[in-house]
């Protein structure tokens, strides 16, 4: 057992050693979104005015479904990370900030999961 106080023990160790976690996740998702975003512009242009049958036919091409699911997952993760920084910068009350950051996470996950399930329903469902 050490005779050091808790404070002395953690001094100089930095925070929880996760200070770069958010920053790095934002960059990783950004790098992934460069090709996915460019691809989605082409996809969206080709789907302008499509009905559900045409959309389904397009989604049954395997790489289209894979890229759409990847895009959706990465997009909503990147959105959550970016909006978190905006809320942290502009909301100064700790209580409101905590509530908004929780809602931010919940909404991002709900939107992302619902989109992926919708994609799978269109591709595989009747």
């Amino acid at each position: 057992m050490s005779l050091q106080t808790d404070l002395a023990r953690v001094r100089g160790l930095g925070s929880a050693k996760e200070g770069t976690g958010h920053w790095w996740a934002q960059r990783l998702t950004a790098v992934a979104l460069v090709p996915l975003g460019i691809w989605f512009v082409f996809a969206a242009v080709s789907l302008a005015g499509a009905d559900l049958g045409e959309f389904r036919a397009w989604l049954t091409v395997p790489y289209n479904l894979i890229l759409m699911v990847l895009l959706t997952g990465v997009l909503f993760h990147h959105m959550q990370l970016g909006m978190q920084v905006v809320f942290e910068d502009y909301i100064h009350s700790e209580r409101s900030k905590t509530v908004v950051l929780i809602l931010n996470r919940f909404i991002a996950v709900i939107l992302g999961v619902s989109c992926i399930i919708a994609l799978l329903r269109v591709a595989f469902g009747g």
Partner: protein
Amino acid sequence: MATDNRPLSPHLQVYRWQITSVLSILHRITGVGLAVGAIVFAYWLNAAGYGADAFARAQAVLGTWVGVVLLVGWTFALFYHLLNGIRHLFWDAGMGFELSQVRASGWTVVVGAAVLTAITWAVVWNTAGGAG
């Protein structure tokens, strides 16, 4: 905590507008705008998952003139955020920090986003015959 009445440093409006600061805040503004667009993207996909009628309605809503104006805005926001994001990634790698380079890359991003938006919508209108 008595932090409310502290003196504030000069606010944004006392500074002259510069390409660097304008593009910096524009990255955040387009990011927030794209988050709103992501909600519409989620509506569009969930409508497809719901059924043919719901998807036809979503496509029709996006094809109204208000929908098209918003989509053009989101297209520009996407290209701006994408190109300026690449500019940020180069800075993260330690490249392009000279003031002349920062200005040049900034104007490249603005002009690039405008040109790519124009090309994208020219293609949409030529292939879809005006339907959004």
